[in-house]
């Protein structure tokens, strides 16, 4: 039976994992990632709810993209729908003045005025921007713009979210994240080696790497946007998945102590795995309840965070049961003959 003595069927589990890992790596190599501005630098605009009467379609996409290229002719623009009535605009890094122009352009577009198809509107927007910039101290101007925004019932400035990340910041983020992951793994390896044995430590870290590669692969394969929140999610899964692996290895450690030479490594690992089924299932389920609720009900920034965690939890449950302990037993067999 596959689930009664998994060690006997370890080749099947290894094969599944190897296929998934290879697919992930191939996808990363050939499809690459849909990197968000946290990694590539750039400016994004997000409108969670468009005013009534606007529907996301090709026409709207082109017109919104034109608002950005009006502000900066050579900007690369991507427009996406979010949720049922929101849009997300990703552009190359814009200056403060260009950002202002885009915001004004969006406001006039969604508030029913003619889109800046001809030059007049574009220059108008240009005129507005510098004035607002230069006279920022002038309270009167500020109030005037506020009033203008309040008059129109539709899109207001307060409903537009803007993110801007410059190239230096994003380079720093990648460097810092890489360092953090490496350090966390080394520290965990040391801790597990002390509390269990070195082989357990290596197997646990391997299972972790497996989970993280699959998370990356999933993101590459389906081209989900990767941002800082993905980094936070990966680090969360590193913590969570190791948790699951350790609970299984704790059983192995106990079986080893109690059974000693009376059982083979495979038997000890099998027993640890089979006694951990319900725990792993229940714990994964309860965590999925909460994180799943966030994914279903949350706003887009929360979903961006919840999705990779869900993927990681599923991978973690699999690897902590079928990859780490079965590999550990195989290694023990090989070195103890």
């Amino acid at each position, binding site marked *: 039976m596959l689930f009664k003595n998994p060690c006997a069927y370890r080749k099947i589990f290894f094969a599944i994992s190897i296929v998934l890992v290879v697919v992930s790596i191939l996808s990363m190599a050939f499809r690459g990632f849909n990197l968000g501005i946290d990694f590539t630098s750039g*400016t994004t605009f997000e409108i969670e709810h468009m005013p009534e009467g606007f529907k996301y379609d090709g026409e709207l996409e082109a017109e919104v993209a034109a608002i950005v290229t009006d502000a900066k002719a050579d900007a690369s623009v991507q427009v996406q729908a979010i949720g049922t009535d929101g849009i997300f605009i990703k552009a190359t890094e814009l200056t403060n003045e260009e950002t202002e122009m885009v915001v004004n352009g969006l406001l006039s577009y969604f508030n029913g005025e003619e889109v800046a198809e001809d030059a007049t509107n574009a220059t108008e927007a240009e005129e507005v921007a510098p004035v607002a910039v230069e006279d920022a101290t002038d309270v009167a101007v500020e109030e005037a713009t506020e009033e203008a925004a309040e008059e129109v019932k539709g899109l207001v400035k307060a409903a537009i979210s803007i993110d801007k990340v410059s190239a230096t910041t994003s380079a720093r983020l990648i460097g810092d994240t890489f360092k953090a992951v490496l350090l966390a793994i080394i520290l965990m390896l040391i801790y597990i080696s002390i509390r269990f044995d070195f082989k357990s430590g290596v197997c646990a870290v391997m299972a972790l790497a497996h989970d993280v590669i699959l998370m990356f692969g999933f993101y590459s394969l389906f081209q989900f946007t990767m941002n800082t929140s993905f980094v936070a999610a990966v680090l969360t899964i590193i913590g969570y998945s190791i948790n699951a692996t350790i609970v299984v290895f*704790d059983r192995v450690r106990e079986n080893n102590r109690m059974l000693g030479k009376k059982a083979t490594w495979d038997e000890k690992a099998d027993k640890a795995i089979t006694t951990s089924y319900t725990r792993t299932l229940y714990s994964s389920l309860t965590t999925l309840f909460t994180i799943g609720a966030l994914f279903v009900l949350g706003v887009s920034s*929360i979903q961006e965070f919840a999705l990779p965690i869900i993927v990681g939890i599923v991978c973690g449950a699999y690897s902590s049961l079928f990859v780490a302990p079965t590999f550990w037993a195989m290694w023990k067999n090989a070195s103890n003959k």
Partner: protein
Amino acid sequence: MKAKNIISFALVMVIIATMAVVVFGDVSIGNFRVPGVLDPKYGVKQGLDLVGGSVIVFEPDVEDLSTVSADDVASAENIIRVRLTSMGETEATVSRQGDYGIRVEIPNIDDPNEAVSYIGQTAALQFMDIDGNVVMDGTEEFVQSATATFGPMDQYGNQGHYVTLSLTNAGREKFKVATEEALTRTAEGGNVIIIALDGMPYSWPMVNEVIDSDSCIITGDFDKDTAKELADVINSGRLPFSLKDTELRAVGPTLGQEALDTSLFAALIGVILVMLFMLLVYRLPGLVADVSLVAYISIVCLIMAGFFVEGGYRVTLTLPGIAGIILSIGMAVDANVVIFERIKDELNCGKSVGASVDSGFKRALTAIIDSNVTTLITCAVLYFFGTGTIKGFAITLGIGIAVSLLTAIFLTKFLLKIMVGFGVKNPWVYGASKRRDA
């Protein structure tokens, strides 16, 4: 024995209920009001992604950052403070990020672009007369430096904080003329030199004599900080750079509110599902775990709100922070699942309920401690290497794990043992697979 058990059980339940009311309440009893965890003043500090607002990170706009001294950055930081105040953004916070970054957080701002261009502009420092005519520019050409000093301020030896202004030769000339001019208007109270930043009067020291020297002092009602601030403002005139925004994250207030509402609702649904699940699967221990979970959530909220003490350390709750808490709820439940599975194993081996509970806890302990310590290692790494929101996530997850160790082990054990003490000894209610006679 039983009476003692009843009393301690009742006591613990009352404490948990009180905590829950305090945290989720917003209850008023007469004049005494319990604020609740979402209270803006006493509750958990809500991050800008929840209330809406902008985070802007500025850096000196220069080719080579190594030409910028630490003093220059400190000076720029103070200018930003002054500018924020003049914009009326008193709730804004300014902090350093890395060697050259200045992180500005402004809650509830509709138009972050205006703030960016206003805050980031090159400082225009000018010295003016009472009518607002510029008598001297605060540039390198005229001003050498300004320093805040503490020491004797007058011939009587009175000590105090003051600012020393050092001028260049050209500056000395101009200042001499300006002070002479100012003194001629003493009668009408016009004997002042206005120090203006960005065209707005910032300070207006009185002129008592003609100053023909390469340094002079500005005295006034200064304390250490205000003297330093004035010195920084004067020095800003010599800053050769403007500031550029390397990072801007602006969440509109409406979106922020929606994010908070939906996350809280999701958390509520998630927790209810978890509680139902535990109750169905583990029966009595499940109920105990649910009580522990309520205690756990209450304690985490209390810690994050700084125990509602004014000026206490309040954790800023961001969106990833909420995710961190929800994840730690999952892990708190996990600890109980590990324990209860052990108890179930022991029961199914035919041990008595009392013995099973004891050895279940004992044997689950190593797994729980080891697994939580490794997660805490990740938290620590995140805290020290992460920036901004990731740091917030690490803090909430760390607090969550620490508290969950307490409630999942000690509180659950305490309550379960009391249940056993009450004589609830049917193995079925403890989750054993078949109904047996005790």
